[in-house]
């Protein structure tokens, strides 16, 4: 059991160096791994790092080159935390970062799936834009609240690519009730520098800055079996309620209260059935189309009635 683990890690290291064109001695690596992991009880990730550093020094490989070698994987392959990988993915959605230690947070996707990503402020990496595709090099997989995510750290690299990465082809349709609308919905203010949502005129990154208005609803769609977190942008909100940003501003001005917009949206959307077409990623549903459900089909009711065999 223990030796299987050593063998697995050894193979990973050997493979990685082979890809960069270096032959390394598997026996020597296993020996050192056994010493570090079994004798000295060093955590696996530290042991691997130590051995890679040693090999890099032995073979005189520049550190950067070695770091660039995290294997290119697809999002569906990410199942374990603590793996260094590279991904080609499109930024599907950016969320508000609530912590100053997080530069950006949101969802990225490729044709095999969608996953949450976090760019740590400490990483000092460039910011990404929604809808653009990037190569995320040397990001580390992690598990947070029971779900997989990837973290962009100091040793990672983000390169914009020309390719338009496709999202999972299967679009799902969910009919569910909008059972909750979060407080940071309605007429919100975004930072004019980074477009993050601001709370009370303060951007989590840039502090007290000029903001601009936006309209959105963050909510929970529930079909009685599953819950989906959804974000409705101005266009979606307008399609459902007829309220656009201008109308929202007018409501806020007339009532002398920006919160009036949220109350109005709650009154018109909460407890309603929505038909949402979109792409599913984890507990999120990326909205492509949204409309109110129009009543119930007579044929469906009759069919169900037949099923009630009494």
């Amino acid at each position: 059991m223990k030796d299987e683990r050593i063998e697995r890690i050894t193979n990973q290291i050997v493979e990685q160096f082979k890809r960069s064109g270096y032959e390394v001695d598997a026996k020597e690596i296993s020996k050192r791994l056994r010493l570090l992991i079994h004798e000295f009880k060093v955590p696996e990730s530290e042991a691997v790092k130590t051995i890679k550093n040693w090999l890099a020094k032995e073979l005189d490989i520049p550190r950067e080159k070695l770091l660039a070698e995290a294997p290119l994987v697809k999002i569906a392959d990410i199942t374990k935390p603590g793996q260094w990988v590279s991904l080609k993915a499109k930024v599907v959605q950016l969320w508000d970062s609530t912590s100053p230690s997080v530069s950006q947070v949101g969802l990225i996707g490729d044709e095999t799936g969608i996953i949450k990503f976090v760019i740590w402020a400490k990483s000092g990496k460039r910011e990404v834009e929604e809808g653009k595709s990037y190569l995320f090099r040397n990001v580390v997989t992690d598990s947070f609240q029971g779900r997989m995510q990837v973290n962009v750290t100091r040793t990672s690299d983000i390169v914009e690519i020309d390719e338009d990465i496709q999202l999972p082809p299967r679009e799902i349709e969910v009919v569910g009730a909008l059972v909750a609308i979060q407080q940071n919905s309605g007429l919100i203010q975004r930072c004019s520098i980074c477009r993050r949502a601001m709370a009370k005129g303060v951007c989590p990154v840039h502090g007290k800055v000029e903001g601009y208005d936006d309209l959105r609803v963050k909510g929970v769609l529930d079909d009685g079996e599953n819950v989906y977190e959804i974000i409705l942008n101005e266009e979606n909100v307008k399609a459902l309620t007829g309220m656009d940003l201008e109308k929202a501003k007018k409501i806020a001005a007339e009532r002398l209260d920006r919160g009036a917009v949220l109350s109005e949206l709650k009154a018109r959307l909460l407890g309603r059935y929505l038909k949402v077409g979109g792409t599913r990623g984890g507990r999120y549903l990326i909205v492509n189309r949204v409309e109110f459900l129009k009543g119930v089909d007579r044929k469906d009711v009759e069919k169900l009635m037949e099923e009630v065999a009494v």
Partner: protein
Amino acid sequence: MNFRKREVARRIFSYEFNRSTYRIQPEEDKAPVYVLTPLGMRCNRVFVVGALLDKEEVKPDSGVWRIRVADPTGAFRGYVGRFQTDALDSLMEIEPPELVAIVAKVRVIERDGRLFPALRPESISVVDSETRDYWIYETSKRTLERIRRMEEKADEDCKLAWQIYNPNLNEFRQVVKQALATLLEEFELVGEKEEEFEEKEEFEELEEELEFEEEEWDLTDILGE
């Protein structure tokens, strides 16, 4: 921080809900409390659409309001207190009777050794009849699925429900039938009127069994957050 997945809002008719008295005690602290229904479903949160029949302050100036919401199979009871600000705000604006959609937590209240399920609403909103119709359809569908699973004794919760409630599944089928009939009536379909009439009488009797003095309830269970 211990972060939990949001509880799904289950679709359930008042007929099944009002007979759900068995609490599944959480295995660890702060885990959600579930109520087991006679058809073997665990629920912690529900989504209900029906007619708000009345709202009444339990005692003058208590800030606690008792509501009754009817679906085609009976009526839900619920209590809205000052901790349920969103629900209370909207409730104050609504004059019954009115069609409402309610997202609520499920509570079981104990009184004189008897247990009564009640709603503790998180949000209440006025909706149209199309929303109500779809809810009846959807809830019928889910209820039939549960009946099927009970027949198959599909999982541990179904087995537990058999043990605790020993439900008469035909009774629940009748309830679904009755609910669906109200939809078909709307489509101006002539149904089996006589049979329906008999069913209705039967349900009224069953409802009576459940009546009790609500004023005497110990409300501490539902009012805390």
